[in-house]
């Protein structure tokens, strides 16, 4: 059975003591804000993103300098070298029996250097799906590095839209902070047509231009 304060003043006393002893007021949520080098946490006790080392690896509620009534979640540990990967949209978005490519970019944080290995998977129905070769490893030396993702379809690949997912691990087996990245590609064996001017347009234009120039010169001569 829970004991209740026998006097209302005692309850206020307990509440007051709680308010003084802890920066986190009961019922008050801790706001979050980005701190140096983009490390943020969403709530006290939550892991910092990107991760930090030491005791500051989890978020801690602190009071703001000018606003002591406001609490903020901060990550105070020294930063761990880490990385993110980004994937540009696969281009072309539609393939028949050709190859779609995408650039994988490794973005280093906190002085991350080293080799990053990639693997890729193609998911989606129907089957057989197009294939992707594991992209070449990228070595980060100066803040970022790139690699090329290639997805190829053969005549036997089924028509449909597929998701291509790229996973990465560094030399210590750590994945990127932002996890695996995906892009989509569609397979169609219906021949598509490029709209717009091509070589024949240009040739037609040049031929018309030549005819027009001759006519201008002829008229010029006649008028003279």
């Amino acid at each position, binding site marked *: 059975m829970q004991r209740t304060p026998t006097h209302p003043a005692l309850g206020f006393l307990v509440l007051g003591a709680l308010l003084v002893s802890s920066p986190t007021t009961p019922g008050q949520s801790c706001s979050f804000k980005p701190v140096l080098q983009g490390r943020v946490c969403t709530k006290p006790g939550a892991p910092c993103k990107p991760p930090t080392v030491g005791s500051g690896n989890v978020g801690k509620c602190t009071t703001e300098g000018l606003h002591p009534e406001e609490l903020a979640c901060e990550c105070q540990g020294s930063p761990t070298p880490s990385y993110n990967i980004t994937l540009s949209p696969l281009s072309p978005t539609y393939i028949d029996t050709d190859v779609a490519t995408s650039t994988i970019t490794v973005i280093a944080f906190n002085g991350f250097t080293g080799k990053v290995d990639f693997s890729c998977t193609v998911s989606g129905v129907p089957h057989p799906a197009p294939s992707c070769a594991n992209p070449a490893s990228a070595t980060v030396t100066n803040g970022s590095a790139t690699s090329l993702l290639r997805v190829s379809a053969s005549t036997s690949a089924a028509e449909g839209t597929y998701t291509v997912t790229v996973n990465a691990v560094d030399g210590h087996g750590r994945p990127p902070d932002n996890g695996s990245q995906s892009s989509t590609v569609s397979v169609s064996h*219906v021949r598509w047509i490029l709209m717009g*001017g091509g070589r024949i*347009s240009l040739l037609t234009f040049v031929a018309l231009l030549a005819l027009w120039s001759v006519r*201008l010169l002829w008229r010029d001569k006649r008028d003279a």
Partner: protein
Amino acid sequence: MLHAKLDLAAIRMPWLNREFLLRASFVALFVLLTYQFPWRWLRFVTSAAVLRISSSLGMATARVSFDTIRIQGQLFRVVIACTFVDVFMGSIPLLWDVRKSLLRNASRLLAVAVIFFGLNLVRLEIAQVLYFRGVPWTLADEVLGGFAYFAVWLFLWRRTWRLLREV
């Protein structure tokens, strides 16, 4: 035709004019610059317009991706050249009147952009209709494209010549 009746004997040919050469150099630069950008939004807008017009003409249409549309079961991909943006960008140095204010030039270019966009849609749609009536795509789209470029050239020629003559 767009060609104006001009007294050719009274003026020097523009290609001998230094200003014309400068403007021509800028044309090349602007066109090169145009192809440095993907123009995804314009390719989307152009394909959307073609899609709507084709649909209103009773064709079966569907969007496949931002730049690819399916009309009557045939896939069409809208590339940069298909948007006429290269033609428009290349026109800017030829249409810019240095004696007019920035606002005046900008509003004139905006009008030209709208006209070019409309002209482009017309030629793309004509190409579609011709193609589905059995005309080969090379003839329906590319030769027609050549004529569209030439129409733009005549317009620009008249404008540029007038500009150079007034200087």
